[in-house]
Structures are given as structure tokens and as C-alpha cells.
């Protein structure tokens, strides 16, 4: 166990160049997406098996907390996708290795260029959702109860 | 000290550079062999050799091994033993081919053969012009040889004891019984009990301030033998390579000049035209080193400092190629392909791009021509009658066969390693089959263990590093490229003082594990001893020959000095003795390039 902690710690401490950070980001984003995907898939399946539960969960996911998480997952998918393509290309085209640093930078730039407007858009959706609720006298911060959905 | 671990083998090889590994490959074919090395084998300094390994393959132009032999003898200033030289040059051819068959990645010609290039002192005997004889793999020939031999040892399952520092030889009368080594990682002593021992521990350039040699080249093998009553031969001959990086000593291979590079002084003159009109920059090393010194002395060092320029920029090289009427031209890509490591060194350490600027160079302590005297089978001989000490062998730089005489030609060391490493290995395997394992003497390790305990616990307050610095300084000043009675006597006085002071050396690390503090202090003892032997031998030789240039005796004197020096250690002092040189086809004559 101590060696695991050591490995994890040193993986963060090592001052590798871009590739090292790309790898960390790729790994973390991949795991994050998977975590989300598991919940998402089992939840969506409820639309068929337990529609009420599904409706409740849709309501829960409207909570700003999940809204922010969704932005995070968006980031993870975008970065992971672009970087995954980069890795695939470099693996199949060894002669492009000299562009490794450049390609890592390109991935980050591409990621930010696409992600930032999307994040703003998604964030504004959360805000408008909350202000709509506020106008109705409700709050987007309250967590819906499952019992309200089970007739 | 009965708890010392003992290992038994037929033969023990000390050192895993080119010579040790080649010997190991051959010895292990007929005997149970252990290879002991204080460094991981691939860290040996053979890996630093750059330019090439000569063999008269004639892949590009006509060449003959006899020409190679003549060049070697001439390069040696006629001090080489010509029977050994013939073997060297003849077997060079098959050995290089053997290396290729072991997988060594030589550079190739368009027709698929091994590529060759020019090197200092190697000529076509009929025209006197430089000949392409040095087989190479870019400028990392030594690296490839070392790697290839190590790979073959792995393939043949040779037994290695890596990071075992050999500190003593077990000799009883005229027999050897093994060696004593320290396992560096644990600090434990081990006895290696064997029928035969081979030393291939390399050189001792670390006696000097500016050197191309590794920190580990401290002459251990030579000193261990010296202390056990074996004389050292021709120790006054130490080669100063003309082109070391200024101040750092890192070597710039002669291959640079082989590819067309030239030496320039402050005025931009190609001064070698004056010192060696025929082959100019490719004269042998002693000649070029002296020329550089004389230029510096005459105030023509760059900016008045003590270095000159080595210029391999395509502009300069092409200019001189055109002048010489050659059609060949070089460009950036050619330099990058043929001299990649040199370019890397100068860029890393000097910030100088050799494609665009000349490199600052000065002579650097490089190679020990002398060493443990052996015959052509690597058997150590202990007197002027060439009496063999059965079971004891030496090969490589630490040995003196002698094929290099007073000055070694570039590329001939690598040849020496593999040719005589192979012969020694072969002979040793045969010897072991006929010899008995003699019993170990009582308390074989007591003496050396006591010496280590003394160093470990000593409280004299003298830092080893200060002594080393002083030794290196005096050796550079007084036992360098040029010497006189006066400088040599000064050096001797100081070295004796240092030897006294060495008794008061105190180290910080009192532990056992990986105690490099202790080992370095012991190595310093070796260096001091070698330095003194060098100075003693040099003081006695009242002539100038090859690498030994006496300002007070500027001429070679064949009448009195065409002989090898043997330096014996007797108690605390040294006794000199001489043995004749084997002359063959080539009678000594004046040496002009």
C-alpha cells in the first residue's frame, strides 16, 4: 500500500514535460467519464424499468451541483477524446514523434477553444434554470424527494 | 577474518572493459570464469572511445597489414616490440570481422561493407599519404564494442560480479591463487580463489588535471600488481591527446581531423603544415601535442591563452580539401552523421556548434602506453628475461605487450584490447585445464583488510581530495607534455611529500554500505603510487622519444635508450631495470611525418 501511495504521489511530483501532464489528465478524465457513465447508463435504463425513479433522477440532476459536474464531464470527454486521438496517431505514426510536445499543446488549445464557449453556455443554462425557479418562488438548491415521484 | 566469503573459479578476470570482456568470452569457452568489475560492465571507459578501430581491410583503397605494422612501429618511435606488432596488425583484420559477426553495428559503405576513415599516423607506405583504415560506428566505436562484447557475454552466460572492487592479488612465491575484492554494495570482503587471474583494469589518466579519462581510471590493477612484486614497464610514456576540450579534457576524436578538420592558431594559421609537412594534422599524437604546446608557448594560443582551435566547419574543411586537390566536400549533414557525439559534447559543454565555429582544444592526458609487462599471450612477465609468472595475465590498457612503445597510434588501443584480450583469454582457458587449484594461504586477506580499517578509522585530518588536487597539479605542471630534469625532480619531491601526507588521510564515511568515500581514498593511494612510478621512470630516461619529451635531452638516443624500462617496487622505494626491444623488419630511423 505504501508503494501505491508513493507511486501516486510521485506521479504528481515528477516534473515531466507536457506528455506527463497529458497522461495524468487523460487517465483522470477517462476514469471520471467512466464513473459518470456507469451512473448515467443505469439511470437511463430506469426510463424503461422504473420510469418514476427516472423522472426523479432527472429532477435531481437539475440541481446546480450536478450542473457543474456535467460541465466537468464535458471537459473530461473533450480533453480525453482529443488526447486519445493524439495518442492513437503517435502510436501508429511513430515518425511523428517529433511533434509530441507540439501535439500536446495543440490538444490543450483545441480543448480550451471548444470547451470555454460550451462551458459558458452550459453555465448560463444553470443560471437561467435557477432564476426561473426563483421567479416561481422555488429554489434550485432543494433536492427533490423520491417519494414525490412515486405515485 | 575467517568469516570472509570465498568463491572458487578456474579463472578470475578483473575489469569488464573491452579487454576484460573479450578475454572473458574466450576464457569461458574452456574454464569456469568470473568477471569482477568495480563498475557495471557497460560503464567501463572503453565505451568512451570514439574514433575507430584500425584493420587493414582495404574496403575503400589498397591497404596491407604490413603497412599498419610499419605505421605502428614508427608511431611508437621504434620502442614497440615488433613481434607483437605483427600479431596486432595481422589479427586486427580477423578480429574486426569477428566483431562484425558478433553483431557490432559498424557504419557501412554503399556496397554494404564496413566503412573506414583516416586517422593520425596511418598511411599508405608507398605514397606516405593518409590511408582509410579506421573502422568506425559514427564517433562511438568504443561504445559499440563494449556493448557488443557485453551482449555476447550475456548470451554465453558469463558470470559477472558487478560492483566488486578488487583490492589485492593473492600471490605465493611465483604462483597466483586469486584476488580479494570488496562488494561495494555491502562493504564486505570476498576472496576469489582461482588458478588464474587476468587484470584488464584500464588506465590512470586521473593522475593529471586535464584528462579524457573517467574518474574511475585510477590504475588499481597496475598498482595491485606492483605491490605484489610485479614490475611496471615503460611508465614514463603517457600519451597526451592533442585535442581535449579546453579545461574539461573531454576528448575530441582524431576522427575530426580524419574527416578533414584542421588545427588553427590565433593567427588562423594551419600550423601543422610547419611541423608535419606531409600529413599535417594527421601526424601522430605526440607530434601534434608538442606542436600545440610550442604554438602556445610562442604566444600563438587563441587570445594568448593556452588553447588552439580545431576547426571542422564545412567552410574551412572544404577550403583545405580544395587546396589539396581533393574532390571530396563535406556539409552539415555529413558532420552530424559522422561526428554526432562530438557535436553533442561541444554543444552541451561549450555551447559551441562545431558546424559553425571552431572548438577550443588543448592536449589532454589520455592513454598509458606502459603497464603490466606481458608476452603476446597476455602472460605477465616479471623480469628482463621475460620470465612468466604462471597464471597471471594482463590485457588492455593496463598491460604493456608492448605494441604501442613510446606513443600509441589512434585506434590501436581498441585493436589491442580485442586482439590481446582474445589471445589472453584463449591462453588462460588452456592454462586452467592443465593447472591445479593451489590452496589459499592462511589469512590471505588480512593485510588489505587491515589497510582498509586503517583508512576508515584514521584521524589525520587530511582530506583525500586536497592531496589528489595537488598531485594532479604537479603532474600536469611537471610530468606533462614536456619534461626536464628539474620539473621531474620537483614532481618527485612533491609526490613523496604527498605520499607521507597520505598516511594522515581522514574520511567522513565510516560505514560499510556503498562506501565510496573509503574506496576513493584507497584509489588515491593507487594514483599516488602510479604518479611516482611515472616520475621515477621519466627522470631516468635521458632522451626524448614518443610521448616522453625531455627539453634537456631533445633527441632520441637509440644507442643508450632503445630499451624498455621496468620499475620494481622494493619496500618503499623503486628500482629501475631495463629490457631490450624486439626489433623485426623495421630498423629505427628518424621519424618524420
Amino acid at each position: 500500500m505504501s508503494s501505491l501511495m508513493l507511486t501516486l504521489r510521485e506521479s504528481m511530483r515528477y516534473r515531466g514535460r507536457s506528455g506527463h501532464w497529458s497522461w495524468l489528465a487523460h487517465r483522470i478524465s477517462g476514469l471520471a467519464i467512466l464513473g459518470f457513465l456507469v451512473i448515467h447508463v443505469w439511470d437511463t435504463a430506469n426510463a424503461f424499468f422504473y420510469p418514476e425513479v427516472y423522472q426523479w433522477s432527472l429532477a435531481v440532476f437539475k440541481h446546480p451541483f450536478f450542473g457543474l459536474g456535467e460541465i466537468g464531464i464535458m471537459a473530461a470527454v473533450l480533453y480525453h477524446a482529443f488526447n486519445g486521438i493524439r495518442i492513437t496517431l503517435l502510436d501508429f505514426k511513430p515518425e511523428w514523434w517529433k511533434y509530441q510536445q507540439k501535439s500536446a499543446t495543440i490538444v490543450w488549445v483545441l480543448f480550451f477553444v471548444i470547451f470555454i464557449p460550451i462551458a459558458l453556455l452550459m453555465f448560463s443554462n444553470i443560471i437561467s434554470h435557477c432564476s426561473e425557479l426563483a421567479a416561481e418562488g422555488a429554489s434550485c438548491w432543494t433536492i427533490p424527494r423520491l417519494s414525490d415521484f412515486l405515485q | 577474518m575467517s568469516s570472509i566469503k570465498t568463491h572458487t573459479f578456474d579463472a578470475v578476470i578483473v575489469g569488464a572493459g573491452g579487454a576484460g570482456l573479450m578475454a572473458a568470452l574466450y576464457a569461458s569457452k574452456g574454464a569456469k570464469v568470473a568477471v569482477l568489475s568495480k563498475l557495471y560492465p557497460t560503464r567501463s571507459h572503453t565505451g568512451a572511445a570514439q574514433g575507430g578501430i584500425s584493420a587493414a581491410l582495404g574496403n575503400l583503397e589498397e591497404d596491407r597489414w604490413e603497412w599498419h605494422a610499419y605505421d605502428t612501429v614508427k608511431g611508437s618511435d621504434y620502442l614497440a616490440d615488433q613481434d607483437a606488432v605483427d600479431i596486432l596488425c595481422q589479427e586486427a583484420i580477423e578480429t574486426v570481422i569477428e566483431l562484425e559477426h558478433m553483431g557490432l553495428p559498424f557504419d557501412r559503405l554503399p556496397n554494404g561493407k564496413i566503412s573506414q576513415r583516416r586517422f593520425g599516423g596511418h598511411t599508405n607506405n608507398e605514397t606516405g599519404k593518409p590511408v582509410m583504415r579506421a573502422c568506425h560506428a559514427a564517433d562511438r566505436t568504443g561504445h559499440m564494442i563494449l556493448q557488443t562484447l557485453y551482449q555476447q557475454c550475456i548470451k554465453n552466460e558469463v558470470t559477472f560480479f558487478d560492483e566488486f572492487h578488487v583490492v589485492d592479488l593473492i600471490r605465493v612465491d611465483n604462483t597466483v591463487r586469486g584476488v580479494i575484492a570488496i562488494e561495494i554494495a555491502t562493504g564486505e570482503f570476498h576472496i576469489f580463489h582461482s588458478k588464474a587471474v587476468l587484470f584488464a583494469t584500464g588506465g590512470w589518466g586521473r593522475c593529471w588535471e586535464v584528462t579524457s579519462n573517467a574518474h574511475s581510471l585510477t590504475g588499481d590493477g597496475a598498482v595491485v600488481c606492483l605491490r605484489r612484486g610485479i614490475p611496471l614497464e615503460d611508465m614514463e610514456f603517457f600519451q597526451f591527446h592533442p585535442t581535449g576540450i579546453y579545461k574539461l579534457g573531454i576528448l575530441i576524436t582524431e576522427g575530426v581531423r580524419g574527416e578533414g578538420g584542421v588545427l588553427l592558431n590565433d593567427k588562423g594559421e594551419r600550423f601543422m603544415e610547419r611541423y608535419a609537412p606531409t600529413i599535417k594534422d594527421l601526424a601522430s599524437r605526440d607530434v601534434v601535442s608538442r606542436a600545440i604546446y610550442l604554438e602556445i608557448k610562442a604566444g600563438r594560443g587563441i587570445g594568448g591563452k593556452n588553447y588552439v582551435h580545431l576547426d571542422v566547419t564545412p567552410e574551412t574543411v572544404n577550403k583545405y580539401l580544395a587546396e589539396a586537390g581533393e574532390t571530396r566536400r563535406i556539409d552539415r549533414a555529413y558532420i552530424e552523421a559522422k561526428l554526432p557525439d562530438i557535436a553533442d559534447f561541444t554543444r552541451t559543454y561549450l555551447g559551441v556548434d562545431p558546424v559553425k565555429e571552431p572548438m577550443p582544444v588543448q592536449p589532454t592526458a589520455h592513454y598509458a602506453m606502459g603497464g603490466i609487462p606481458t608476452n603476446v599471450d597476455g602472460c605477465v612477465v616479471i623480469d628482463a628475461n621475460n620470465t612468466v609468472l604462471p597464471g597471471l595475465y594482463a590485457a588492455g590498457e593496463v598491460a604493456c605487450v608492448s605494441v604501442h612503445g613510446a606513443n600509441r597510434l589512434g585506434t590501436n588501443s581498441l585493436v589491442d584490447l580485442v586482439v590481446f584480450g582474445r589471445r589472453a583469454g584463449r591462453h588462460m582457458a588452456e592454462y586452467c585445464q592443465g593447472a591445479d587449484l593451489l590452496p589459499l594461504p592462511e589469512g590471505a586477506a588480512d593485510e588489505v583488510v587491515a589497510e582498509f580499517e586503517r583508512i576508515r578509522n584514521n584521524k589525520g585530518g587530511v582530506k583525500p581530495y586536497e592531496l589528489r588536487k595537488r598531485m594532479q597539479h604537479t603532474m600536469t605542471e611537471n610530468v606533462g607534455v614536456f619534461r626536464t630534469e628539474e620539473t621531474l625532480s620537483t614532481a618527485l619531491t612533491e609526490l613523496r611529500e604527498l605520499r607521507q601526507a597520505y598516511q594522515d588521510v581522514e574520511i567522513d564515511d565510516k560505514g560499510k554500505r556503498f562506501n565510496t568515500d573509503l574506496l576513493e581514498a584507497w584509489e588515491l593511494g593507487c594514483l599516488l603510487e602510479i604518479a611516482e612510478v611515472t616520475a621515477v621512470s621519466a627522470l631516468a630516461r635521458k632522451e626524448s622519444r614518443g610521448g616522453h619529451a625531455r627539453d634537456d635531452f631533445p633527441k632520441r638516443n637509440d644507442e643508450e635508450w632503445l630499451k624498455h624500462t621496468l620499475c620494481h617496487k622494493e619496500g618503499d622505494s623503486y628500482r629501475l631495470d631495463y629490457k631490450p626491444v624486439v626489433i623485426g623488419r623495421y630498423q629505427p630511423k628518424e621519424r618524420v611525418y
Partner: protein
Amino acid sequence: MQVQLRIRRFNPEKDEKPWWGEYTLDNVNPNDSVLDLLHRVKWEIDGTLTLRRSCAHGVCGSDAMRINGANALACKTLVARLIKEGATQARIQVEPILGLPVVKDLVVDMEPFFEHYKSVKPYFINNSPPPENGRERLQSPEDRARYDDTTKCILCAACTTSCPSFWADGRYVGPAAIVQAHRFIFDSRDEGYAERLKVVGDTFGVWRCRTVFNCTNACPREIEVTKAIAEVKRALTTGKV
């Protein structure tokens, strides 16, 4: 200039756990190498400091260590390259390489590394008889060029110990061993390529490489390590060498 040198120290004979040794060195020339600085500490200040070194110019592979967080050879890393130009003060941090057991201070146990090296059969295999004329096997310069890069390896372990996959699991053969395998797999004279591909194509072979590039960036011989690994992967996926 002045350098504050921080060195990760550990002597299992005395210390319970590793500690940082801090040393101040004055009159440092920016052209000094980190090895020069370590030597100054060892020779002038504290002789117990332990490290490996030999050639002092980057060809023997003894002194791979972690300098300012990333692997490099101490003798090939000049102070000038670690500081901003014209700086008069600098902090330099030196640690042992990761993933191999520390023996003492900056010295690690290299055995596991060499075991991996040996596992890829890093030697020339050709059982066909050599040419009858007693001469060299021929090889075109183009064939020779294919594996030129990987012949440069000095087995310093800077690459393998910079690789997160190797830190995570020491059973991964690591980039250095793959470089060595590449050296022979792509040598047209060698006949052992299938055996070697089997070793590096196994569970702890090239598939553990996640294309991180730390190895390439750490290699003091400027070997295109990741490229070599990718070429081996490609040989394994296409069946063509």
C-alpha cells in the same frame, strides 16, 4: 553565483527514513555540471554523500538522477540550463531515480533494471554461417540506419525510471529494454526478431507503454525512445518488421 543544493539523503545503516540535505555552494560557475556540484559537496563538505559516476561526460550512464524533479545525467546537466540567464542564485534539487530500491543516497539497486534488459535477449542472434570469404556480413547503409538511433543507448535507466507505468509496476520491462529489443529487431542481419517480439509483445511488454514521452524527454542520448517503442508496437500489430 551561489547555489543552494538540496539532496535527498538516505543511509539505511543510520537513517530511519530519507531526509533532505541542504548545502550552500559559493563561486559556482554556470558552466559547472550538477556532478561537479555533487563532487564539491562530497569532497569538501560531506564525504558520506554517495553517488555513482565515472566518465563525467555523459557516455557511461552511471549518474542518472532526478534533478529538479525530472530525470537526467548529473554530468550532462549544466547549472546554466537550470537557471534563468544572469541569475546569481539558484536552488537545485537532486533525488535518486524512482522505481528502483534506494541503496544509499543517490545510489539505487540496478539489478531489476538489468534483469529486464537481459529478458529481451539483447544480443545478436544469427545462426546462419557467415560469408565464406571470411569477411563481414553485408548491410546497406539504409538497413543500418533503421536501428542506428537505438544503438546509442548507454543503459543509464533515466528513461525507465521516468515512466509512470514502470513506477506503478516494476514488472513492466520498461523503455530501455524495449530500446534494446528494437536495436536488434530492426537489424537486418539479426534472426532473433520473432523471439524478441514475443517477449516485448507479452503482458508486461510494450502494451504497458501509455505514450507518456517522459522517457524520450529524459534520455540523455537523445534517443527517440517513444518512437522506437511505437515501431515495435507497429511491428506487433502489423506483423511486419
